[in-house]
């Protein structure tokens, strides 16, 4: 006996409804939030990132070495393991992720605790802490833009995001006298986090071999501690000393709202 066409159509609809993944409706869009650090057993693995779920109270934690992603559900007071197959790039170039958060029951779940600005939990593999980036142990001593970009996502993304004024960059690119810039900054300093990526982008974009940058990270007690900053009247961070032909010309004003490329271009133009 041949089934009626209406029955066939109904069965097809039913099977497609059953087979289709309901996850599309539960895709959680997660945007990277570089104000946070992901600490795993006291270390800060490269590529580990904290993401804010759009319009939800959920966050996603990506630790590349882990076989699963982790979904932090603040309302549910738990952290759930999310199989990697349920996590995809958003594909818009922003680094955002699409997480299918209708996680089947039976997966791993961990309780978390909060102490002031730090959230922590213990997985099967290790102890994870989510903390503000400024609370990470600081970089001290001589460093480079490349090292900062590798180790500090907030600097890497800040450098990437800043668009300096093109005419000022043109001035910096063409400057012919030898310029030495000593920049003393601190990875624990909120103002440095805002200002330094802009300044570093300016130095990168200038691409002028005559402009040499010496970058130094300062510890919290730098006023008492000895280091490359000692004896140079470095009393606050960031302090950026501009030397032309070996002579200190000025210190850049890194106050809020300062535009490093126009200021530096102005300094160099004044000393021709």
């Amino acid at each position: 006996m041949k089934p009626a066409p209406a029955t066939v159509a109904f069965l097809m609809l039913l099977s497609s409804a059953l087979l289709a993944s309901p996850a599309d409706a539960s895709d959680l869009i997660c945007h990277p939030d570089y104000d946070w650090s992901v600490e795993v057993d006291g270390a800060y693995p490269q590529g580990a990132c904290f993401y804010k779920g759009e319009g939800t109270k959920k966050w996603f934690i990506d630790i590349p070495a882990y076989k699963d992603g982790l979904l932090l559900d603040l309302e549910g007071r738990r952290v759930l393991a999310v199989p990697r197959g349920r996590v995809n790039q958003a594909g818009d170039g922003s680094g955002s992720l699409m997480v299918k958060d209708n996680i089947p029951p039976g997966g791993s779940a961990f309780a978390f605790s909060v102490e002031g600005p730090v959230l922590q939990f213990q997985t099967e593999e290790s102890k994870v802490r989510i903390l503000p980036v400024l609370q990470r142990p600081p970089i001290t001593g001589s460093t480079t833009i490349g090292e900062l970009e590798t180790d500090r996502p907030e600097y890497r993304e800040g450098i990437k995001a800043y668009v300096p004024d093109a005419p000022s960059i043109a001035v910096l690119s063409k400057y012919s006298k030898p310029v030495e810039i000593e920049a003393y900054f601190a990875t624990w300093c909120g103002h440095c986090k805002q200002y330094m990526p802009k300044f570093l982008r300016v130095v990168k974009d200038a691409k002028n071999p005559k402009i040499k940058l010496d970058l130094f990270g300062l510890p919290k007690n730098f006023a008492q501690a000895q280091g490359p900053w000692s004896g140079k009247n470095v009393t606050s961070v960031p302090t950026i000393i501009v030397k032309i032909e070996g002579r200190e010309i000025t210190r850049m004003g890194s106050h809020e709202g300062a535009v490093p490329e126009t200021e530096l271009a102005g300094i160099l133009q004044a000393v021709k």
Partner: protein
Amino acid sequence: MLAGIGSGLAALSSCLLMLGFLALKIHSLLAGRTDPCGCFGAYLQTSPGWGIAIDVGFLGAGLTILWGLGRRAGRRGRGAVLLILATALLSLAFAIASPRLPLDPLVTRLAVGKSLEELGLGGRVPGQGRRLVALLDLADPKTVEIAARLEALASERGAPAVVALTSSSDEEKASFVWSANPAFAIVKLDRAVLKPLYRGLPRYFLLEGERVIALFDGAPPNASDLLSLRSL
């Protein structure tokens, strides 16, 4: 100078002071320092050229007074004392009352009709279409309660999405996130960017696309108020 007591001396001192400022500014400019003087805080970022022009203007005013003194006798005696007292009292009353006076349109940049670009927020407020932007101090314990009200508002049918802007520190933001547990996005900006937009926090504005269509101070607006607003 206002009271007319010792006008000559006051005008002369002011002129000398201005000459001193001018000399220092010109010296700094010649030495390559081009950062703004910061005399007017976050409200007005002057270039060195403008700083010099302003000082020249003040110097001109001082010289005008000196010139005028030769032609008109100053006010003296009890009247002058009363004038000083009245001025001092008025200044004090103004300083005390100013937080409650409707001065925001005069002293902040935030106004209906302005674009995000004009407010210095171009590209910094995520989302599209209609959004309620909340300027928040995350260190203020009351902000936790405000966040709950904003979330309730955002969950109403047809209500705009909520975005918070703050210049609070990372640590304050972290504590706030774990305690208030907000679903809306919090964007951290330099204080220099936000300060020109408010005198007191919290403050809210409604965006239609990239343009401000309404302002709210103090308590968050009601969903019905937001829904009844038409675009400009």
